[in-house]
């Protein structure tokens, strides 16, 4: 099923028809926002538009199609495959991943019990985030993180929304598949928030290569231990490490001789060094490479450091070239 069809399948029938008239493909569509009684908004090519009442896109709110409550109910039926009970955990997290890896954010009335979200009812707001993979975006950094027999333990650092997860996903794919010069590695992926593989019914919807094993929805620390014990990975990839348990698990994995590629929120290497959780790993040279993404520029690699903090790559120029 193609990308367009997967997204259309979760839209209410009335919206589906108008959407089809407005778009031939989803290549530039980023988000579709449905709010009860409000105009349907499409984030397209970096701009925001209303879906027109007669199809097409408009900036005029008067001519915009307004989403009804029954539209939202219908969309929720499709998103949950008519099985609300099967998506309780996802609703608790606030999003559901559908076929194709598209992530649907949901908001409505929260049912709170014993200090935690029990469920969500009266869902009146949906945000369909269309999945776009950036295959090949890791090409630049692969020579810096891969060596002949394996990889350097690598930490990808950036503020939120700079493309860490997208980059990590492509690194997993590249390492797992290998190429004509480099063998592929067995990569264990701990995908706690289903962002890397975007698994739908257990199958990764994003391309993670032919040697990747995915633990979907599993807490990171437990997942890393499970993979070490069960899947004999060469490398373990994990997104957004942050807790003491995560750091201990990373340490354990590294001590087992397994390569680690992880991401973390941060501004620069000093920021990470000063964090109580990860500081010890950085100071103990557990990571051999730090990849820093440029703030405000999605997927742009700013610098790559070695374990001692020396720059080996900066803004498109490698250290060797710079020295020359």
């Amino acid at each position, binding site marked *: 099923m193609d990308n367009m069809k997967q997204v259309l*399948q979760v839209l*209410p*029938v009335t919206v589906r028809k108008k959407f089809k008239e407005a778009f031939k493909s989803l290549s530039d569509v980023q988000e579709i926002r449905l709010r009860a009684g409000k105009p349907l908004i499409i984030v397209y090519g970096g701009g925001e538009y209303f879906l027109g009442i007669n199809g097409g896109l408009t900036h005029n709110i008067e001519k915009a199609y307004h989403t009804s409550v029954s539209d939202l*109910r*219908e969309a929720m*039926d*499709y998103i*949950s*495959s*008519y*099985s*609300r*009970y*099967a998506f*309780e955990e996802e609703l608790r997290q606030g999003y559901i991943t559908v076929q194709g890896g598209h992530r649907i954010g949901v908001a409505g009335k929260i049912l709170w019990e014993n200090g935690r979200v029990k*469920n969500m009812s009266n869902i009146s707001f949906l945000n369909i985030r269309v999945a776009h993979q950036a295959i090949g975006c890791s090409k630049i950094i692969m020579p810096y993180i891969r060596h002949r027999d394996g990889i350097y333990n690598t930490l990808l650092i950036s503020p939120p929304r700079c493309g860490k997860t997208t980059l990590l996903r492509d690194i997993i794919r590249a390492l797992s598949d290998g190429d004509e010069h480099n063998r592929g590695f067995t990569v264990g992926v701990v995908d706690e928030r289903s962002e890397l593989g975007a698994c739908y*019914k257990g199958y990764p919807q994003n391309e993670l290569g032919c040697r990747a094993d995915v633990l979907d929805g599993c807490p990171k620390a437990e997942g890393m231990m499970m993979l070490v014990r069960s899947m004999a990975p060469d490398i373990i990839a994990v997104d957004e490490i942050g807790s003491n348990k995560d750091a201990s698990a990373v340490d354990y994995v590294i001590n087992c001789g397994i390569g680690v590629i992880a991401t973390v929120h941060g501004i620069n290497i000093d920021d990470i060094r000063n964090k109580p959780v990860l500081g010890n790993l950085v100071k103990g040279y557990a990571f051999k490479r730090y990849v820093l993404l440029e703030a405000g520029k999605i997927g742009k690699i700013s610098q790559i450091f070695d374990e001692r903090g020396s720059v080996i790559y900066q803004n498109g120029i490698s250290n060797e070239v710079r020295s020359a």
Partner: protein
Amino acid sequence: MIKFIGVLFTVSGSVLAGHYFADKSLIRIHILEELEQALQFIYGEVEYAALDITEIFSSLSLRGKYCSDFWLGMCSKLSEKDGYDLYSIWVSELDGSSWVKYLLYEDRLFLKEVGKNTGNLDRQSQLHTLEIFKNRISNIIETARSEYKDRARVCHAVGAAAGIFISILLI
């Protein structure tokens, strides 16, 4: 001789009709038993794996003798995502199923109620509702079984008596 053959045909015809109505009650019991197993299966899948309803119906379509077409139809209509909710699809598939003719009006109402309360509940409520439906269908089956012997006897007797009565009238 012709009269004798006529009587023979009439009596055996009405005995067969009586047998048909008795058999219909038995088929009803078989169908209800199959539906009970289906409810048990749905309960198990929701409880253990929280599989979505389309997958569960798809598995059910591979089992059973009478209702597999119904589950298959549900599965295919739900996959179409064509603007109908689960209950509308359930009712339309149910009305279009050939085995429904063996069920009583109350059985059909019960089945519609099952459709109305499937899929749109949270897990705990869904399991609780399925538990209630399982108990109700067990009771229906129990009643049907206890009534079956008497009903079958009545059907057979009425069939034979009607045949004899018609034969006397014709002679």
